[in-house]
């Protein structure tokens, strides 16, 4: 069942929570709504669920508008951040609950059979008689998923379902959720503020900020081909390095204090607009240069770091290593360039030490250039 969201808006008095949101979720697809807190992702989910009314626009499930439909007739299952398991019922009763209320109530026996099926799917059969209070976070999570699926909903909505779990459990449960969702082929919308979670679980991700969908794309595209500065900054860890540069039209370079990037070394085919047009935008307002931490390369240093071919990079500058952070296979090297604190990722065996002087090469072809409003130019 597909979900189509058209020109959806939501305002609370003066405050705009959602602005002209358009989204198309295909049948059986798992879409993540990703964004910082307050970006409107939960509002959007609640509107799809029918727990909130939109101020304008339409939500269609399988082609039919549901904005005037009561939540219970929308055919949705939902998992909440705090799971909302009913404390006075056993696990089994919790899972059966949706089948035992409302007009579509089924007989206890049949409800039990159906509940058992989903309890098997989520691996909680052994907990049937226990109360939610005596379960671990991960177990409660499974119960919540089973309860959401037991009505065989057209659409499954998950509102930050993993944020109450500890880090290790989060990893395994998110794989588990993806497995279950794919096994039941239910169309799923998953809300999260954790980019790693979204990247690993979603077929496609809608990145939201200030009530607007900034980009809706496959995970790798968000990272490699961000639509704007917000997406580029939001996706990726360590975070994107950014530099405010001015444009020197005479020399055709993006000029900074410590380094400058000639337009000539960029790949013409990767400009979002005709180069001439891009240049006039640059000349008008300067730009923000975005460099992924892996696109800085340490190409030499005072301690005799092997000269890793500084000549391969058209832009090279020297700097002082401020600190080095180990994260396993890689190390994050912190330094300052152009008055910005920068991060670069290097192989842990080639990591310099704090205080070393190093030469940094810039992989110019892979950088992103944004205009003053954060729109992508390159």
């Amino acid at each position, binding site marked *: 069942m597909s979900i189509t969201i058209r020109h959806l808006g939501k305002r609370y008095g003066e405050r705009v929570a959602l602005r002209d949101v358009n989204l198309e979720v295909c049948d059986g697809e798992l879409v993540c709504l990703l964004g910082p807190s307050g970006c409107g992702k939960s509002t959007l989910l*609640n509107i799809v*669920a*029918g*727990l909130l009314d939109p101020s304008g626009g339409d939500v269609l499930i399988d082609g039919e508008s549901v904005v005037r439909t009561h*939540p*219970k007739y929308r055919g*949705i*299952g*939902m998992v*909440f*951040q*705090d799971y*909302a398991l*009913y*404390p*006075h019922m056993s696990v089994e009763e919790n899972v059966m*609950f*949706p089948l035992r*209320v*409302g*007009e*579509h109530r089924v007989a206890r026996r049949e409800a039990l059979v159906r509940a058992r099926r989903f309890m098997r799917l989520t691996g909680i059969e052994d907990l049937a008689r226990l109360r939610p209070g005596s379960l671990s976070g991960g177990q409660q999570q499974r119960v919540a998923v089973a*309860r959401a699926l037991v*009505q065989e909903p057209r659409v499954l909505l998950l509102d930050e379902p993993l944020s109450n779990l500890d880090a290790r459990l989060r990893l395994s449960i998110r794989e588990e959720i993806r497995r279950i969702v794919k096994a039941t082929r239910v169309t799923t919308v998953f809300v999260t503020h954790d980019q790693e979670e979204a990247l690993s679980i979603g077929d496609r991700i809608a990145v939201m900020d200030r009530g607007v969908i900034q980009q809706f794309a496959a995970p790798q595209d968000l990272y490699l081909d961000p639509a704007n500065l917000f997406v580029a900054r939001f996706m990726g860890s360590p975070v994107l390095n950014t530099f405010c540069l001015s444009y020197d039209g005479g020399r055709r370079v993006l000029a900074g204090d410590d380094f400058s990037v000639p337009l000539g070394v960029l790949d013409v085919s990767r400009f979002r607009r005709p180069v001439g047009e891009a240049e006039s935008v640059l000349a008008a307002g300067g730009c923000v240069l975005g460099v992924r931490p892996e696109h800085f390369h340490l190409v030499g240093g005072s301690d005799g770091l092997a000269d890793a071919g500084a000549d391969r990079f058209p832009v090279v500058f020297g700097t002082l290593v401020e600190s080095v952070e180990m994260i396993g296979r890689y190390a994050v090297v912190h330094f300052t360039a152009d008055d910005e604190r920068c991060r670069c990722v290097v192989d842990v065996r080639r990591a310099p030490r704090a205080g070393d002087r190093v030469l940094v090469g810039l992989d110019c072809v892979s950088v992103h250039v944004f205009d003053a409003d954060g729109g992508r130019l390159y």
Partner: protein
Amino acid sequence: MKRIGRLFAYGFVLLTTGVTVFPFLYMVSASLMSFQEATGVPPALLPAHARWSNFGEALRAAPFARYAVNTLIVSGLSTLGTLATTVLAAFALVRLRFRFKRLLMGVMVALLMVPYEILVFTNYRTIAQLGLLDTYAALILPSLASVFYILYLCQYLTAIPDTYYKAAIVNGCGDLEYMWRIMIPMSRSALFTMALLLFISGWNSFLWPILVTNTTDMRLVGNGLSAFVTESGTAVQLQMAASTIIVLPILILYAVFHRRIIEGVHVNGIKR
């Protein structure tokens, strides 16, 4: 220093306990006295010998069995009724969105400030004009809703995350089903405390029943106490004996459920 502080604390507790418990103990003691002992000056603290016959005599002075049945019916029904109205009102105030909700809440809080004695007159007029004087309806109707308990339950319900309600709605529950299957079971302890306190206050009610009833058949246990007041004076020792008997069921209730009662009062007290 610490020991002195603790000494003070114990002293204070003992003093307040004494002040609250003394009348009760005196009631029991006086119920075993002779008329002379009970009314003498200076008053006697203990009877010379216990006169158990006072109890029998007290029970014969008024139709206490009938009173007890009446009281059970009236307190029972008004307790159930109040629970029902309170649950519905508190649900609406906490979970539903409607216009002027805040104003309504404000008015309700303001109503708490109005003393009961003032309401008694308007209530009496209403009941009289409805032609309900001297009926069970007169005894029960005015106590079918309580602003205090509505606000008490609202407090309790706001502490239950609204995701339970959302989840129930998505699961296909209607509002009534949500109340019956989720909200009431989840607020059992608060409702239980409420029911106990409501029943106790119903049992102890005195002023209202004596106003709206004329015949002995409609009187409640509390009113039975006035049977000992005659032109020639009050049979204090019998009145005390009757009081002791009347208080007994409440004491038993308390003894059985005191933990729940304290819990309910306590939880409400420290709510964020």
